[in-house]
């Protein structure tokens, strides 16, 4: 038997093993603890504000009473609008990148664009949306401007996730369809897309969860501090949960009195975002069960 060299004796190795384990396990526990703390804090402070009327009524008395229904509705509308913006563009770009593009300057440029778009701070998207959609296109502060801005914000994530889902679809599906006389597009539409779609949608929904909680992109482009009525067109401003929390906590004259509403709104927003993630997880689980390739 070879003799272990100095510093390599079993005892030393066991010690290093223990130290390494201690650090990685602590990191794991710490991460979970932070998450748990935030959850407990928000739930603890917000749960008392939640009631049926809080979820279904308009705010009253300078927001110190009443509900947050228009903010919930606004967030959902903006999220849906963002999805409608990002899905056609993102899925289109993903199909091009995964199915058609051959390495070259154009593809490099598109990839660079996607990667950089993902790194742009959300407040910059807000200013961009203000300049382009609100002012230049004349959409004003509206559902339309906010949806487009949020859509652009999640576009890189949606594109990357969709491309990944397309790449995971076996090459043999494409070959089989092409060998049966399908055109490239027919093979994609009839065989590749149905197989990749659940994965593509999962990515889009997860991105949406992030967009729903964003504040900066919609401050300048879509959100109103207070609306009296339901929006009746895409050119109307809406309230949104994220900006509602911001307004109550920083701008109002009743910052202290509205604490319960602030935490209540935060809790609702959190549930909304977690709900979206849950939908994505369910789709993914279904996908894994259904596929055998």
């Amino acid at each position, binding site marked *: 038997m070879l003799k272990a060299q100095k510093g390599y004796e079993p005892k030393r190795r066991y010690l290093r093993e223990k130290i390494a384990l201690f650090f990685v396990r602590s990191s794991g526990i710490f991460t979970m603890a932070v998450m748990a703390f935030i959850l407990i804090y928000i739930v603890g402070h917000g749960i008392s504000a939640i009631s049926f009327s809080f979820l279904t009524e308009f705010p009253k008395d300078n927001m110190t009473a009443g509900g947050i229904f228009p903010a919930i509705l606004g967030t959902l509308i903006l999220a849906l609008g963002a999805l409608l913006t990002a899905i056609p563009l993102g899925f289109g770009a993903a199909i091009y990148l995964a199915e058609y593009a*051959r390495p070259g300057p154009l593809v490099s440029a598109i990839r660079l664009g996607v990667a950089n778009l993902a790194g742009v701070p959300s407040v910059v998207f807000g200013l961009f949306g203000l300049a382009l959609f609100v002012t230049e296109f004349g959409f004003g502060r509206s559902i339309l401007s906010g949806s487009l801005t949020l859509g652009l914000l999640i576009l890189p994530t949606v594109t990357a996730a969709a491309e990944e889902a397309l790449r995971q679809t076996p090459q043999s599906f494409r070959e089989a369809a*092409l*060998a049966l006389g399908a055109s490239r597009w027919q093979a994609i539409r009839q065989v590749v897309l149905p197989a990749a779609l659940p994965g593509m949608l999962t990515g889009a929904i997860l991105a949406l969860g992030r967009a729903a909680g964003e504040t900066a992109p919609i401050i300048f482009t879509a959100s109103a501090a207070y609306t009296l009525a339901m929006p009746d067109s895409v050119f109307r401003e809406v309230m949104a949960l994220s900006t509602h929390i911001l307004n109550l906590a920083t701008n109002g004259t009743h910052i202290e009195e509205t604490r319960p509403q602030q935490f209540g709104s935060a809790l609702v927003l959190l549930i909304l975002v977690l709900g979206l993630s849950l939908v994505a997880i369910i789709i993914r689980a279904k996908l894994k069960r259904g596929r055998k390739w």
Partner: protein
Amino acid sequence: MVEEKKEKVIIRAKNVDFYYGDFHALKNISLDCMEKEVTAMIGPSGCGKSTFLKLLNRMNDFVPGARLSGEVTISGESIYGPNADPVDIRRRVGMVFQRPNPFPKSIYDNITYGPKLIGIKKPDLDVIVERALKAAALWDEVKDLLNKSALELSGGQQQRVCIARALALEPDILLMDEPTSALDPIATSKVEEWIKTAELSIVIVTHNMQQAARISDKTAFFFLGELIEFGPTLELFTRPRESKTENYITGRFG
């Protein structure tokens, strides 16, 4: 006296060179395949046999940097000429791949995929499904499961679904790229049995020499991109003309 056989050339390759970028994958290949015969392509990995197979239905078109010179005709028509339509060629030249690759759809939808692409509708599709599955010797096993996902079948059944799917278009030629390499012996013998009885021009690539000997009328031996020897299977395996062929079939290399 030798009986005059009326053999018709269905595939003719003349002085074909094929490149992947700078790589010279096929060197000056000339070869004729006869109608309703089984032509086997054998040779060690990377010898060009699969490349040759895939250029017969233009599946190499999708490989970046692929380039061909020379002439390939099917029933006398050039398939690389200016008027050749790859999609049309693939309808006339069916293909079965190395691994069974049914779509994640029902058996019925797998078989009808090709016919639907050219606008064929029910009830004609029902007739086609039955005929194709019978031709692939699978009908009795799956006739009550047509709406079941093809992915739930066994490997051998999946491969026969793929054969039936190709046959549904009533191709003149069927290309098979090592169609039994992913199958167990029983499934293999079923597919081989089918090949032997099929009334179809078949070109099959195989790394299994016994298989080539069992099922083919003619055999082509490829080595390093060249066609070393091509002739009746029995002759090639019992009295090879080239020493390279002899070395390969006796297992001295490959």
